[in-house]
């Protein structure tokens, strides 16, 4: 039986470069390997059990059929991307002032809060056709749906962030006889940054969901529209292709938010990811 000996100190304290490399390994290489493995398993299963393509198409078939109409798919992707980004952008533009208002006075909070909760309790899929009647068959109802799906968690996290400031700092600000505006700009908003980014991460993921929901109801373009039309004609591999593009879009946009936080706000405490 061997005795476990703690490694010598020099070995335990890895030099920074090695640590950076192992971080890259964990964050990029391992997920890629896992994803590739999953696709291989999927491909193998489809071939081994001869699963019909209209039930579960093999990854190679998805690739082949989607690429066959590549330019069309690219156009649909661009349409969805546009809806997602517009919806996400409008969500931010609405959420920030709304959160500031909610935290500014208890009276405003009491008056506005029920409406906020109410917008969240309405099923968006049910609301979508009504909005189309109201707003017409154009981009507008799609953006409205996307915003309705995405903005709520953003408002809540920004408001939570604005209220997370230690009371002593607010006292310090008052002792400096600072205005409410500079208290907001110099203390509350910077303090809320980690919360804002936590909200942005949720909102960007929900914006993709919202855009697709809107496209199901009212669209002549977009990946949601593509999924509907291709399943209607049993072009299941194309529908799967659109689904994969959607998920990749969601992951990439999410990662952009993560990287933006790390680059612009390196001190932000939400940068400590679990496991890191």
């Amino acid at each position: 039986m061997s005795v476990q000996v703690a490694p010598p100190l020099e070995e335990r304290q890895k030099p920074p470069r090695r640590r950076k490399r192992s971080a890259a390994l964990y964050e990029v290489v391992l997920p890629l390997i896992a994803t590739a493995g999953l696709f291989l398993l999927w491909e193998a299963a489809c071939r081994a059990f001869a699963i019909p393509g209209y039930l579960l198409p093999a990854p190679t078939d998805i690739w082949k059929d989607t690429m066959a109409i590549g330019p069309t798919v690219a156009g649909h992707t661009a349409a969805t991307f546009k809806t997602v980004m517009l919806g996400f952008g409008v969500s931010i533009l609405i959420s920030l002032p709304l959160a500031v208002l909610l935290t500014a006075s208890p009276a405003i909070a009491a008056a506005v809060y029920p409406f906020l909760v109410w917008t969240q309790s309405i099923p968006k899929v049910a609301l979508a056709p009504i909005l189309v009647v109201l707003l017409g068959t154009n981009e507008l109802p799609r953006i409205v749906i996307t915003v309705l799906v995405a903005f709520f968690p953003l408002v809540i996290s920004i408001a939570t962030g604005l209220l997370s400031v230690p009371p002593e700092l607010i006292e310090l600000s008052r002792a400096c006889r600072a205005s409410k505006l500079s208290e907001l700009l110099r203390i509350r908003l910077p303090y809320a940054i980690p919360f804002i980014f936590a909200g942005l991460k949720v909102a960007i993921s929900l914006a993709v969901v919202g855009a697709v929901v809107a496209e199901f109801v009212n669209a002549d373009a977009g990946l949601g529209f593509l999924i509907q039309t291709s399943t209607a004609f049993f072009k299941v591999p194309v529908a799967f292709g659109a689904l994969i593009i959607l998920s990749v879009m969601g992951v990439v946009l999410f990662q952009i938010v993560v990287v933006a936080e790390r680059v612009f706000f390196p001190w932000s405490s939400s940068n400590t990811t679990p496991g890191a």
Partner: protein
Amino acid sequence: MISINRVTRIFNSRDGDQVTALQDVSLEIGRNEFITLVGPSGCGKSTLLRIVAGLILPTAGRASIGGEEITEPRAETGIVFQAPTLLPWASVLDNVLFPLRMMHRIDSTSTDKAMALLKLVGLTGFESKSPRELSGGMQQRVAICRALVHDPDILLMDEPFGALDALTREEMTMELLRIWSERPKTVLFVTHSITEAVVLADRVVVMSPRPGRIAEIIDIGLPRPRSFETEATPEFHEASQRIRQLIFGTRHVGSGRAAA
């Protein structure tokens, strides 16, 4: 310089009850005097400090500085809290400059002032560090610099060393005495520590709770500069014992009577 005249402060608690945090408190503080407020929790020490800061107003009575009634925070007062509460996104230097920025009083000499203060507390070379790279004691030193940067004539300290470990706390106490001797200010210092209260103060204000009142004001005649050795003198023990009696004494008398 600071005059507190029969000040009473009543808070309305959330369930509608009224809590008397301070009752009929009177205190005169001279220029550059070092006053410590000591007493059990709930005796209104922090309330009194915040009234002098102008952060809360008395329900009755009058608090004034230099003859002028305190109705709002005043620019010439510096505050240090129990937690350093530095801005995590700003460097040490920017944290020290923060009050000047909030007061729109930043000018070409501000950075030099901040650097001189950081030198005073032994933090030269840490200007560009982020607060999270600093130990608790160092962070509280930065907070002291932040309270001094606009050169206030009154320094209010609300248990500034309460969150520090015992060793750092003793070190910071001596450090504060040194800073005070180099830059004399009127200091109002709230603490739970009797030792700290005696070693720092010209006068110790002992408070008693429910409602918050001044039990006694004790003159500390110990010679300055004081050091760790001061704590070994009989005068120090006498003062500490008297404070202990004031804080715990009534309780002992009460239990003695119950036994009899």
